[in-house]
């Protein structure tokens, strides 16, 4: 692997990590805590959307995020020829 493609691979990885981390923070610290008052108008079963994110939604999003990252990285590994044979 050349230096150039090594740095391109790492840039692609960092970009993907950044996207995932933004979503990670948004559903937990965002919707679950800080932004809860802003979305309190959306009713969910006796309470509001922020409560649902704090007790259910954030956890479900975390699961999707990790599998999404694992699948995307597998594809990126292959594209750059650094996957495990």
């Amino acid at each position, binding site marked *: *692997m050349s230096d150039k493609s*090594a740095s391109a*691979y*790492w840039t692609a*990885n960092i970009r993907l*990590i950044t996207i*995932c*981390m933004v979503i*990670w923070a948004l559903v*937990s*610290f965002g919707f*679950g*805590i*800080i932004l*809860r008052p802003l979305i309190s108008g959306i009713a*969910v*079963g*006796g*309470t*509001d959307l922020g*409560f*649902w994110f*704090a*007790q*259910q939604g*954030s*956890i*479900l999003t*975390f*699961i999707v*995020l*990790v*599998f999404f*990252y*694992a699948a995307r*990285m*597998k594809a990126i*590994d292959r594209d750059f*020829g*650094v*996957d*495990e*044979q």
Partner: protein
Amino acid sequence: MDQFTLNLLVVGASFALYIGIAIWARAGSTSEFYAANRGVHPVLNGMATAADWMSAASFISMAGLIAFVGYDNSTYLMGWTGGYVLLALLLAPYLRKFGRFTVPDFIGDRFYSQTARIVAVACLLTMSITYVIGQMSGAGVAFSRFLEVENQTGLLIASIIVFLYAVIGGMKGITYTQVAQYCVLIIAYTIPAIFISLQLTGNFLPQLGLFGTHAESGVPLLTKLDQVLTELGFRTYTEHHTNTLNMVLFTMSLMIGTAGLPHVIIRFFTVPKVSDARASAGWALVFIALLYTVAPAVGAMARLNIITTIYPDGTDATPLAYADQPDWIANWEQTGLLAFEDLNGDGLIQYYNPTDAFAETAAERGWEGNEMVTFNRDILVLANPEIAGLPPFVIALIAAGGLAAALSTAAGLLLAISAAVSHDLIKSVINPSISEKGELMAARVSMAAAIIVATALAWNPPGFAAQVVALAFGLAASSLFPAIMMGIFSKKMNSAGAITGMLVGILSTLLYIFTYLGWFFIPGTNMLPNTADSWMFGIAPASFGTVGAILNFIAAYVVLAMTKPAPQHIQDLVESIRVPRGASGASSH
């Protein structure tokens, strides 16, 4: 057959299974002892990680922790699951590629310094030993409750069982035992939850039932809960009552603390490939979420259930007469987890929050105080099968589940401790020429010693058991997590920067915790009272790990700016751990 005999049978059968697995999977080499020969399927590793992670406290106390506070304690749910995102994205795949056995191994090699390795071992031992005291005493309590023996006898039984399978099996035995323990604990947890959700909301999925309609009253379950709590003088369940900054920092501390706990990290060394390490974190999260999404539902439903049991005709009508209490209340009253005192002598049970604001209402109704004088939060899970009217077999399963949760976490921690001693201290620092066989023996002996030390410390558990868990998370968050992360993401980070960072992180966190909880937790030596008013910016000691981590990063980069960057061969090493290709199978060096 009576309940006790049934408990013994089910618990005994589960133990026979664990020990059978340990004999089948006994470790023959150091690679098997430390990392199960890197042959564990990612799904099975996810299951083992979930059992490793979820302690007796998660199993028994989590639902109560949410139920008695409500929304504000969602921090535990988000914090203890969000950490796995950090593990999967930032740590696990690279550490797996690095291909060694322990966390100090990575820190020592990456920062090319024995000092860094020893600082990491010190952090690891402090956090794992404090953590394991809680687990062993938790296991002792669980054994004593389910097997009706003294606490200390329970502790001894727990030590012997862990000794049998952890010392023989090492990581390999522990892994497959944890898979079995996960199955036992999740079945035990979800069966009563499904039935209670069906009864209260008609929805068999507790996760949906929590946001469903309360069948009896026809209003949403959470609205109903808010309503009865307010009527009894409690704070609402779904609203936010605490400091937002503290809530954010506490959640973050739990997340990065989780990602920095060595006994969790080493589980990702056992899978065959780098890509497996990423996926395995996802599977771990799936298996953890099965319990963590059910827990808030169990909490809310059990709390409502108990209130409607005491006030069968509504909170403004006559409460339950003490003489008419259902069997399960009588049963649990015997254990002391529930206790009543008829303060106004009317033969009825009044359960409410005796605050000043509620005093007038209470006086009008002739109430002279909350008569449910003990309402232990663990009861919400323990009594669930009886409240839901399930057969005795399910009660026995809860016993086996609670014990499985306690044992699996204790075994994982003991392995992390023994690997730090035999591999990082004996093999890497004291006697590098030790043979493979000698190291395996050293690993077994240090495991046995760790069990003895943990049992001795848990024999008379120090009064600060709850605080030390906060300390373990704070240390993991402020020391190991930033060091590992910089080791991967900052190629130039050098040994001086990393060591300074770790020391600044740990010492600032310790200083903050000791300021409010007393030096070394000795009561009375705290310099400031441990109240929300005196906390700096409203930050609780347990939330300080995040601040410690930030200070760690700042200190490390300041020192890096003033010193030479890491040498070229170390930067090449970092390059190599960033790409998956070339990950070795079993590796000993």
